[in-house]
């Protein structure tokens, strides 16, 4: 639906060809397999938790938040986004996309649409399913985590897309950022919540599912901050790609 909306507008924001190539490229590499493995881990552990502790809210919350939202969803976004950009930039094959009369923003938006699809299919939907496995009687929990994962995942995609065009070590830097900032510091220092994608999406979950994963963060702030990161990340990536110095082997 998003695609058809964008086609209707004047300058095309999405190229179906780039979307198709992007989808093929993700599943044509080993990263594609990892995208399947990560949600399977989440679902497998959810089944295990449900089996061991029964329908327990604390267990459900810790699994969905600690494993799903802090680990699985950001990793899906990292794998999908860096897989769509970094290899093509590394080996120079992105020149076949750049040497076309297409706006750089169209290239980025199209690639991010594929990444968003991955976040939806491999992140948000498994989160919903995991929520229903853990607490079948409380569908709001699964829905909340699914929505939070989708929004957070999109923001991560925009961040990692920008990293991919800024540095050749996007995956390593992305992992360090996830581990140190979002994982370690985000858990230790409550002030990090103002600048943490995971905490913003946790605020969305709190509102939908009635939890309190993160304190003292307002919903409007979480929504606006996530939106800003998505839009600014996409725009800056396109801008950077526009002035992208692509050299030969010399």
């Amino acid at each position, binding site marked *: 639906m998003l695609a058809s909306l964008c086609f209707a507008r004047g300058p095309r924001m999405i190229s179906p060809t780039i979307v198709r190539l992007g989808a*093929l490229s993700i599943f044509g590499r080993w990263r594609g397999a990892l995208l399947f493995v990560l949600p399977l881990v989440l679902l497998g552990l959810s089944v295990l938790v449900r089996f061991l502790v029964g329908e327990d809210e604390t267990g459900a919350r810790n699994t969905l938040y600690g494993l799903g939202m802090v680990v699985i969803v950001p990793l899906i976004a990292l794998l999908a986004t860096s897989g769509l950009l970094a290899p093509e930039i590394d080996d*120079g*094959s992105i020149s076949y996309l750049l*040497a076309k*009369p297409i706006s750089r923003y169209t290239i980025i938006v199209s690639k991010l649409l594929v990444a968003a699809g991955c976040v939806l299919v491999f992140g948000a939907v498994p989160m919903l399913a995991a929520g229903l496995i853990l607490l079948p009687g409380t569908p709001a929990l699964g829905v909340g985590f699914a929505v939070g994962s989708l929004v957070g995942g999109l923001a991560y995609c925009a961040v990692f897309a920008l990293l991919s065009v800024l540095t050749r070590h996007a995956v390593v830097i992305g992992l360090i950022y996830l581990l140190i900032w979002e994982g370690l510091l985000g858990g230790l220092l409550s002030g990090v919540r103002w600048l943490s994608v995971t905490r913003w999406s946790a605020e969305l979950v709190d509102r939908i599912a009635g939890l309190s994963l993160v304190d003292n963060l307002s919903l409007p702030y979480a929504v606006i901050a996530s939106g800003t990161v998505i839009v600014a990340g996409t725009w800056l990536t396109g801008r950077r790609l526009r002035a992208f110095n692509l*050299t*030969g082997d*010399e």
Partner: protein
Amino acid sequence: MTEIRIDHVSRWYRNVVAVNDVSMTIGPGVTGLLGPNGAGKSTLIAMMSGFLSASTGTVTLDGEPLWRNEQIYRKLGLVPEREALFDYLTGRQFVVANAELHGLADPGAAAQRAIATIEMSDAQDRTISTYSKGMRQRIKMASALVHDPSVLLLDEPFNGMDPRQRIHLMELLRTMGADGRTVLFSSHILEEVEQVARQIEVMVAGRHAASGDFGAIRRLMTDRPSRFVLRTSGDRLLASALLAEPAVRGARLRSEGGIEVEASDFGRFSEVLPRLARDHGVRLHEVTPTDESLESVFSYLVSS
């Protein structure tokens, strides 16, 4: 008329100068960009492709800037040197995708036409990962031709091609030049360039060293000694025969096998060598102009 104009262009990477105050105009017909490896050819082509900004100076296509101007690619076809392609696609899928990205009305037909032009119809449904180096080169060529561009830029297009493919690509470039297209290709081998290019631009160490038709460049290069390494089935026999030739200034057997020859007259040497080999029943496995020789040709050009 389509014309690429390079006006006092320099490009440096930190404190390394890759291209140094180069000005040239590339017009319709085939132009060869000749120079040793590291001369700045790829950097220059990257700037003509809109992939690299000039540190100073301007690069324009019919007056329009090439840098940060996506619309220029409607007129421009590129064949990059790097081999990476979308390996998970078949040749045809790749060319069709390129046609779609150009927004062509009938991408399938355009792709078929381009694939037929470079004679890849038989292998078009194989995935690119199974292609040989020469086939990759040709499918790249098809992707560059699919929108029928008036300018075609090729970076070292003959690398990795076998002699038959080489001849075919040369014919194709000649035809495109004769059709009035602006075709520019780079190479570090004079023989390649002079067989196709009407106009030759020589780059050495980032500078524009010489410019002219191949006759002029050829004269600059051949009236001087040049060196070769030969691998043959009878080094000793051929070496002594070569020494008797006036076109050969010296011949030395190499300790690791093969003969090192210094020819005083390249044109005559190239006629004499096969004849001598045949007369003495010696098989020529390899004839390589040595790098020093190539470098010396260019340094000779610069100093002249």
